[in-house]
């Protein structure tokens, strides 16, 4: 049987990947994908804990998170499309109208 720590380790690696991706990558679409990786890292945690604690609550939360992630991706991609129409670019660094 795979120990709980293995799942938590995978989840931590995924979370770190997503976190670094958001902070380092400059392409809006990759940033969006990194955020989705962070959400899925949390999902792995929730499902693994749910299994080992023998409580269904975590799996129910994970189902809600999957639905939310879909909604978030829809809104995010819509924003990317409107921004791209204006700038012909999805580079985060080119969003520089607002600064002090």
């Amino acid at each position, binding site marked *: 049987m795979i120990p709980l720590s293995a799942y*938590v380790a995978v*989840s931590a690696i995924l*979370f770190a990947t*997503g*976190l670094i991706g*958001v902070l380092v990558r400059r392409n*809006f679409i990759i*940033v*969006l994908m990194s*955020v989705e990786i*962070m*959400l899925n*890292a*949390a*999902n792995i*945690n*929730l499902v*693994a*804990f*749910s299994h080992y*604690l023998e*409580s269904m*609550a*975590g799996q*129910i*939360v994970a189902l*809600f*998170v999957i639905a*939310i992630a879909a*909604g*978030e991706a829809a*809104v*995010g991609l*819509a*924003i*990317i499309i*409107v*921004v791209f129409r*204006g*700038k012909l670019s999805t580079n*985060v660094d080119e*969003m520089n*109208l*607002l*600064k*002090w």
Partner: protein
Amino acid sequence: MTLPLTDILAILPELIVVGAACLILVLDPITSAARKEWLAWIGLGALAACVGVTVSQMGVTVMAFSDLVIVDPYAGFWKLLLYVVSGLTILLSLAYLKEEAMHLAEYYGFLLLSLAGMMVMVSAADLLTIYLGTELMSLSLYILAGIKRTEGRSLEASAKYFVLGAFSSGILLYGISLLFGITGSTKLSAIASAIHGRSLDDPLLLLAMILLVVGFGFKIAAVPFHMWTPDVYEGSPTSVTAFMAVASKAASFGAFMRVFLEGLGGLKANWHGLFLIVCIATLVLGNVVAIVQTNIKRMLAYSSIAHAGYALIGVVVAGHATASIEIRSLGLSSVMLYLAIYAFMTLGAFAVVALLRKGGVEGEDIEDYTGLAKRQPVAAFLMLVFMVSLAGIPPTAGFIGKFYLFMGAVRAGLTWLAVVALLLAAVSAYYYLRVVMVMYMREPDASVTGQPRLAASPALAIVLACALAGVVLCGLYPNPLVALTQQAILALK
């Protein structure tokens, strides 16, 4: 499986708001452009109905949907505040959207959906419902921020808000998942009892707590998680900025305090110091950086960061490990009082910004206010009152709010914190009164000929009158509001 009627009744206000939002979104395509405003009145009608339901629910505590939702006086207070703010924002938007020639009824639909998310947040008794409410609020706000599709600044605000908002939600969710693993539940009451018997130095528990602090820190715009605020507040349409600055901050504080005082109350020895640092950093950065701003919306953004810092003083007092329950309750109620007062003065200030918008050019630079007292005495006087109140000068409401916060800090033995906050309030007077100075002491620019066109309308007049009444009445006779906040606080342990 059947749904018990009591559960349905408990979330009746949320159902009314979501129902009205869906109705507006469905009716939008079949309504002619001239009649889009009628859809806004549907939203106002729904809010009026919600006020009635929530007032009738005050005073009782009901748990619904297997303890996912709690309806108690604390939630009722925040909901009433959110209804008032949303109602005023809808009226402000009626005027603003007409001025911007944006005939978009879906705007009101998303506004109400965002409100529904905030209502779920403040009456959540489970981390799952808090997460769902936060996301519903944020996703609607991302869309609202970018609703001016033809303007680059609005789109950029929306994109930046989305990236940082989604990022912070991811961090919050990871914290929730760890907390679930440690305590075996996502219910705040179960988490509280699970934490009760544990050692406070569990590194995993501390990590989960810090992730939650980061997640909520983004939502309430506390330093060092504030960097999205100025850009988003400046770029978004003014009516949306007012809504974000007031309603989303109030709802986030409501959920934030319930999570930390109820769910993680056993860890207050750990988070108290953390909040103290965040509080001071927020106060210093918000007030100091606001001084150099030339755009009024950006200045108000930094001012809203600073005000989050003031409100955090109350959270620090409420989480003080050695103070008595009475003093900690004072801290909690003073946060609620402060955010209610902050709502009126900030909405008023943004309403004046919307009022001064001149055809084509935003009246956003502080320089645009030069000599306003000569050209538009009423608008200048209103701005004077809101700026004085934001600075916390008596007899306005802003003074009352700060007075209760500082009193809580002094009674909890944090006199030095009250002194620091007071000194920074003096700093804040500089940039608030600079606007007043520009309006009253300088002559109007000779090259500007004629009167600036005011975007005045009956709806905007109602908003300004309500905000003015709130600021003046709460300043002169604060007792009813103070009594309401003291009845509505959480039971601290």
